[in-house]
């Protein structure tokens, strides 16, 4: 009997959850779609009357229809620069954070350097890196990596220090090694912070990659180069088509992070149903 009522309760909860989910979905998707549609309409109206300011929506769509491989190829190049650079930058930032949170002296020694790195406009060092490393991928990786380093480091530090001191006490009385504490406590505790940081860092790394491509004048691949070449020829259609691709790229990258976060952080309050 008890188990029956328990089952009823559970299925009731599931139903309620499903209904809420459906309601949530409508609330979630309709307003942004309407907003987006409105912008497209306004854009189109404006573009028709001002052909030298922005291209029309149809001209942009036409770009993708007539030369999809151009955009596809350049997108892959920029995506690779951003993702590889960001991954290296985030990995390095996390390693630094582990070192800094375990060795206080290191934190005191490194923090000022990191802050200097952060306040330096990365855009300014891009041309120098291009001179040093040429037109290849290296300067793009470096800039994408450097641009994500600071936000990821700060979030990692906060995350690594987030475990409850009483949980740490339990680990200490078990005589857990620093590695066990890191692997079984600090790393999982910091995951919510790392994902929050990744949502900021991956779009940032796209900016880094595009800026690096801008600085490598004469380069022929990547959306940034495409924009620059097209702009020098006053080809607005290509410029804005590239911008649209970049925006879509940013959205997809964020989407992947959010999906991963849902998957891995089901235990964390940030991924419970966000009702209301």
């Amino acid at each position, binding site marked *: 009997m008890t188990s029956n009522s328990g089952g009823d309760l559970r299925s009731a909860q599931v139903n309620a959850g499903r209904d809420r989910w459906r309601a949530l979905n409508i609330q979630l998707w309709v307003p942004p779609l309407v907003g987006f549609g409105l912008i497209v309409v306004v854009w189109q109206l404006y573009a028709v009357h001002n052909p030298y300011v922005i291209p029309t929506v149809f001209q942009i769509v036409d770009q993708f229809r007539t030369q999809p491989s151009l955009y596809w190829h350049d997108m892959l190049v920029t995506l690779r620069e951003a993702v590889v650079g960001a991954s290296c930058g985030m990995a390095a930032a996390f390693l630094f954070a582990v070192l800094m949170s375990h060795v206080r002296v290191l934190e005191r020694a490194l923090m000022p350097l990191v802050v200097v790195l952060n306040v330096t406009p990365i855009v300014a060092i891009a041309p120098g890196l291009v001179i040093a490393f040429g037109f290849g991928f290296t300067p793009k990786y470096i800039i994408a990596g450097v641009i994500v380093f600071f936000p990821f480091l700060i979030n990692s530090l906060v995350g690594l220090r987030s475990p409850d001191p009483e949980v740490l006490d339990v680990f200490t*009385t*078990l005589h*857990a090694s620093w590695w066990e504490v890191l692997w*079984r406590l600090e790393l*999982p505790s910091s995951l919510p912070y790392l994902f929050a940081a990744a949502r900021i860092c991956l779009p940032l790394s796209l900016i880094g990659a595009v800026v690096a491509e801008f600085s490598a004048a004469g380069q022929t691949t990547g959306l940034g180069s495409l924009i620059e070449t097209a702009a020098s020829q006053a080809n607005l259609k290509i410029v804005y088509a590239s911008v649209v691709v970049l925006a879509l790229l940013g959205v997809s990258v964020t989407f992947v992070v959010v999906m991963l976060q849902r998957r891995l952080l089901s235990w964390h309050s940030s991924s419970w149903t966000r009702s209301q």
Partner: protein
Amino acid sequence: MPESDATRVSRHPAKSTNDVYATGDDGVSISGIWKTFTTRNERTVAVQDINLQIRRGQFVTIIGPSGCGKSTLLRIVAGLLSPDCGSVSIFGETVSHAAESKHIGFVPQTPALLPWRTVTENVQLPLQVNKYSTSGGDGRQSDPRELLESFGLGAVLDRRPHELSGGMQQRVAIARAFVFDPMILLMDEPFSALDEFTREAQRRGLLELWQSNQKTVLFITHSVAEAVELSDVIVVMSPQPGRIQAVIPVDLPRPRGNLVENSDPFHAVEVAIRRELRRNWNQPE
């Protein structure tokens, strides 16, 4: 004085309590512990000259007003704090040795579970950490699932901590401290966040567990009744500086159910403790 197997097994408070001050490798001996905390402009003597002998298998409760250094003392015994002077020996070992060979089970004031692990996985943690130590006690590690079932948590084995009630979480925390069979259990007000009914049930559960496992327990509480129901020996502490004011043996037969609770001997112990606690306030030094 070495204790005989007979006392250990029968665990008759009447016999063991007189030996509170007996020394030997076979118990926990706390001698001459001092600990001072220095904050920006103040020095607090948290505990002053604590001496205490606990025999194997005894249930010892520390009681005293807030701030009298109970947690400080427990954290020193657990090896989480080092004392300014004095020493602690746990069954003949230093605290760090005891921790290294996983002889210490610690139950903090909050359940302190890992939110990303299920109930079972949380209880498995001590078996996964520091794996190659000589393991606790007699090396009798329990199967986490069986242990949890005996704790009445068989239905929630695969749930996450946030899906449990506070009382269930606390039971999981106690199971986590039991699973690797440590020689001594250190518990810092583990039931303080629970309501009276749940506390009662938890107390009974803990007592049953203790009686079947013969573990040495050092237990902090704020509740006089809880102390009397649980303990072989009650240590009353006084604040500022934190010292041991009295060591009161509890010569009541076990199990101490509802019947005993209303009996005169039960009250006599309660009254004795309350008198000691009150002395803290009436005679400030």
